[in-house]
């Protein structure tokens, strides 16, 4: 945040907010540009899937396991379905799950972290003991445990992945709050009689945004990997929905005869995750949040 709020000549330059200057700085980073371009392509693919997909993703014909050709650019699967169309529709689920789970995890995690850090005492103890237990396990394993309890399906997968990621956000939010609440402007706000809630959400949270943005961005890539992993294991969304993990899982028995079914879904996953990782890395350097590196490593 320090960088975003800093101005070159010490004054607010007219017409340009901190955010737009931040965006301009970000675009100077090659990683960010590459990341944003790839991510833009995939987002476009997700939004316009019905328009750009050459076939219905579930339409079958008699051209089973046909290799790459002009009629089927990425070949067909064992049921004669067009692989490219299925992968294009799969983008919708992957990006939707990636973004929505991180949004939910962010809201819950930040709420827990801010409350724990701001009030301290017993509340802090209770919340953090729970977060510590969850912290001992990788997010993916927690998601597997939760799907074991809830059962599969899109909603349950979203809930499971969201809950699995809250500890990351809670920890970052709490540690930021602990530093920020000692600042003078917080004392000032208290003196003029601002309520705890007002201080937490209007004064503390905006100043904790930088590391949360970085963790949030990188978490999207891990959430996408988690969804793909769950689908691959048969614990994901409904089998009739084409998702990248599921396409890969269904195709794995045929890879010796049709390599494309095994190769392309993973390539789509890798490119998406890679673009988000590039973006996250660029953001981390820009916002200078060294602390978050360890969390992102999960």
């Amino acid at each position: 945040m320090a960088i975003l709020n800093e101005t070159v000549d010490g004054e607010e330059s007219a017409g340009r907010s901190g955010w737009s200057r931040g965006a301009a700085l970000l675009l100077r980073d090659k990683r960010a540009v590459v990341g944003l371009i790839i991510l833009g392509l995939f987002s476009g693919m997700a939004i316009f899937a019905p328009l750009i997909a050459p076939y219905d993703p579930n339409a079958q014909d008699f051209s089973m396991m046909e290799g790459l050709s002009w009629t089927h650019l990425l070949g067909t699967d064992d049921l004669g379905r067009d692989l490219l169309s299925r992968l294009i529709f799969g983008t919708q689920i992957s990006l939707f799950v990636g973004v929505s789970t991180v949004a939910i995890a962010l809201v819950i995690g930040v709420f827990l972290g801010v409350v724990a850090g701001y009030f301290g005492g017993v509340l802090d103890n209770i919340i953090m003991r729970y977060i510590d237990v969850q912290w001992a396990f990788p997010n993916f394993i927690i998601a597997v445990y939760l799907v074991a309890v809830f059962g599969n399906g899109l909603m349950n997968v979203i809930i499971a992945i969201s809950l699995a990621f809250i500890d990351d956000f809670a920890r970052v939010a709490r540690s930021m709050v602990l530093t920020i609440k000692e600042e003078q402007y917080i004392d000032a706000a208290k003196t003029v009689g601002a309520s705890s809630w007002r201080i937490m959400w209007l004064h503390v949270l905006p100043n904790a945004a930088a590391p949360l943005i970085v963790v949030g961005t990188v978490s999207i890539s891990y959430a996408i990997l988690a969804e793909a992993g769950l689908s691959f294991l048969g614990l994901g969304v409904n089998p009739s929905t084409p998702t990248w993990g599921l396409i890969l899982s269904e195709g794995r028995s045929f890879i010796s005869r049709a390599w494309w079914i095994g190769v392309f879904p993973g390539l789509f996953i890798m490119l998406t995750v890679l673009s988000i990782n590039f973006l996250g890395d660029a953001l981390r350097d820009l916002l200078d949040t060294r602390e978050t590196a360890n969390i992102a490593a999960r």
Partner: protein
Amino acid sequence: MTAYLARRVLGAIVVMFVVATLVFFMLRILPGDPIAAMLFDVEDPDAVEFLRTKYGLDQPIYVQYVKWFGHLLTGDLGQSIYGSRQDVTRTILEAFPRTMSLAGLSFLIAMIIAVPAGLISAVRKNSTLDHVVTVVAFLGLSMPDFWFAIILIIAFAANLQWLPAIGYVPIAEGLWPWFSHLILPSIAIGTPFAAIIARMIRSSMLEVLQMDYIRVARSKGLLNTRLILVHAFPNALIPVVTVMGIAIALLMAGTVIVENVFAIKGLGRVLIQGILNRDFPVVQGAILVVSAIFVFANLLVDVLYTVIDPRIRFD
């Protein structure tokens, strides 16, 4: 030091207790009915009643909990309710060495890749080699391990036919059969893990190489290799070890999924098959053992940390 260790061990026991309790209660508020699963969803009230009594499901939940916990403490994890009705403890004891072999070999492969890669890219910072390592590390981090596993199968098992595609052979049946079955899954798990470790070693080495004592050593005319390996590297490892707990957890998560690609009946496959079969005693047992491995790995890392960093030991 002793107080610190005692506190950490106690903490680990508390975590395991919480996990065990959560597992017990969460699996019992499930929507899926294990009895229905046992009867293959055929409706037969008499059979349901018989099985409920047999497995003690007709008793109040706290009675079930106390009984279950008592059994757990004696190492009895109950019986599978799907197929063979095998003891869960036996299933897990069979699975354990497979998972450990796989995790161990993956770790070894990861280190063989990560240590040189991290050192070279730190020492030759901003060289072409450093950039190549960085790009490869990014690819490794972004690649789903189960997909990499499939690619390895396509290349080395299906096409070249150098190595078996699936299964596991115990080490007692010969070193090569054991190794040949584990090498592909280990590479699949170890590569993304190596990417993380290599990046950590790089950034940690870069920091250490800035230190005064390194400059002193350099000005004394110390050989570069000696400087890097003897003076800088051990100190650069300290921050790497602190995050090793997280990294090992990630490695274990990789084994859970990759075991399923290679049909290795380790803990991960036992867990996932259990979930798919709604075989709750198995799921319960697998979750407990997998969790225990994580908790133990974290504990081990904390202990290791005090061993390699004297500043903590004498605190």
